[in-house]
């Protein structure tokens, strides 16, 4: 048990990104995020205005109502954390093809 927790903590990555999409994190980018995370094994969380939600839930992302130029914190926890974070940051930079 203890070992596992320690393992997980080693694989926790936290990063901040700025949402560039003109309409913020609306349905289409939220869909892209969830699709991108569909096969990743880690837990992924977005934190915005002190609220933390599951990034694999499109409803939760939408309910955050993140506007353009807002900064959100991404937390990835699990075995493929670094790769997942890398993919997410790239997607945010490309504005999800929006």
């Amino acid at each position, binding site marked *: 048990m203890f070992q596992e927790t320690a393992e997980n903590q080693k694989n926790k990555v936290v990063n901040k990104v700025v949402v560039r999409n003109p309409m913020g994190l*609306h349905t289409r980018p939220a869909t892209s995020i969830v699709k991108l995370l569909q096969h990743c094994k880690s837990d992924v969380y977005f934190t915005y205005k002190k609220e933390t939600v599951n990034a694999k839930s*499109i*409803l939760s992302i939408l309910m955050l109502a993140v506007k353009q130029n807002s900064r959100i914190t991404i937390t990835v926890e699990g075995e493929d954390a670094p790769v997942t974070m890398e993919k997410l940051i790239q997607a945010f930079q490309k504005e999800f093809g929006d």
Partner: protein
Amino acid sequence: MAYDAQEFCLRGTPICRGIAVGRLYFFDRKEGVVPDITLSPHDVEKDVIRFREALNNSKRDIKHLQSQLESEGALEAVVILDSQLIMLEDPLLTTNIEVTIRETKKNAESVFRAAIRKYQEKFDAISDPFFRDRFKDIQDISRRVMEYLNKGARVSLHDIPPGSIVFAPDFTPSEMAETKSIAVGAIVTEVGGTTSHTGIVAIAKGIPYVANVSFELIDFSQEYVVIVDGRKGEIILNPTVKTIEKYERLKIHLQSQMKGLERLCTLSAETIDGYQVRLSANIEMSHQIDLVHRYGGHGVGLFRSEYIFFPKNVIPSEEEQYRIYKRIVDRMKGRSLVIRVFDLGGDKAVPGYSMLKEGNPFLGCRAIRFLLREKEILKTQLRAVIRAGIGAPVSVLFPMVSTMTEFLEVKKIVRDTEEEFGISPKKGIRIGCMIEVPSAAIIADHLAKECDFLSIGTNDLVQYSLAIDRGNQYMASRYDPTNPSILRLIKLITSEGDQGQIPVTLCGEIAADPRFTMLLLGLGVQELSVAPRYIPIIKHAIRNTSILEAVDLAERALCSATSQEVMDLISGAYKRNVPEDYLYNC
């Protein structure tokens, strides 16, 4: 929402004044009720599977729709549906629902519906309208899933999202009674009228309500923002931002006006020249008595006892009725209470009784006629009322009396019942006679000799005098309580009451319309009985009237030839006396 859609306006009969702005919600009871069931342990897993199947079926449908759209080149729509597919896999709508079904042991549709409602509330709380509108997709998929879960599903009143403007072909009084004013912004129906029982309940609750509106121009598959102006009977669809702002301002103004009026509660209901008016309340439920006390009402002028059926839809036993009435009597704290015996038939069905097949129920077996047919129901009620009323200022009132014979018959039943309890006629309960049929008005002199007070029910009196069905959408515009014939009947009744030295109360909807206050006082009505929430506004009207002016106004009204002349006369007088009222001066 169609942002580019044109603003347009529909008109109907204004029933309950007030302003509301909200989203259109079409309430169609043909769709069936969403059941709320507690599952037996071995049914829980079955329901989880049923829920998964509903999700899978919905996904299959969407994929099918996608391939169809793709072949048509509507790629934009394909992408949107992609999001809906992702939503159908959202843990909040999949694993979370399954967990809740297992935990609460409730059926899938009720759990799913509750979850959707919760998310709707969250979306509604988002300040950015763009994100708030994203809920539309969730609504769309939830409809799809619900269809699979609950074939022939019907929306219940509880599903109505808070603040909605509810459009329905019709609304029954019990549905209206169930409606929570916080949940419903306003109500718009195709049929109905001011004094239909549905209208009465709406007025009592202060829910803006417009009836007799044609739905022809509305496409219910679209979403609309709607403004309801219950003062004028106007429905504005797709209002511009400017229009919305205007009405929001008006709404705030009306709210502060009502707050200001509440300050009158400790002052007495007397005219400028010191004439005391009794101002009582019409109530349906015991908790409304608190409002009567709060607003400084003299008592209850009309307790519509048939509303005690609504919770269970059965006629309660004598003991149960006794307890209900006793609770009300106690809550009155020594103030007078008039209990009207069950007013059933017409548009109010009798629980447990198959209604007679009547071609014209309003001219048929209703109210006192029904009770004289089903004497046991009447006797049971009278026993409970008499017991509860011992030692308290309680009266019993008989609705829809049309002949002397009828009245004498019910009066005898009251006295016989009292004899069973050893109460002498001299110490008997006060008996009132409602005057709501023209024949009763015409023989008011005879009735006045046999009863302790008269109570004018103008809602029915207008309907029966003018031969206008108050619920008939084609006739609604002709339902005129200002018709001089009605005023003459009221005058006749008050004069006969005077002669017989008994008080005359008026408890119809016009009593709660401050534009009528001066006229009614001038016609000699000594007591007005209104839904509790109207006590402040009517008190304000009384306090701004002089009785001499009122008598003069009534004389002129009695000489008028048309309803319009009378309406102009009374609204002109009200505007002069109470110019600050935005609710009625418009």
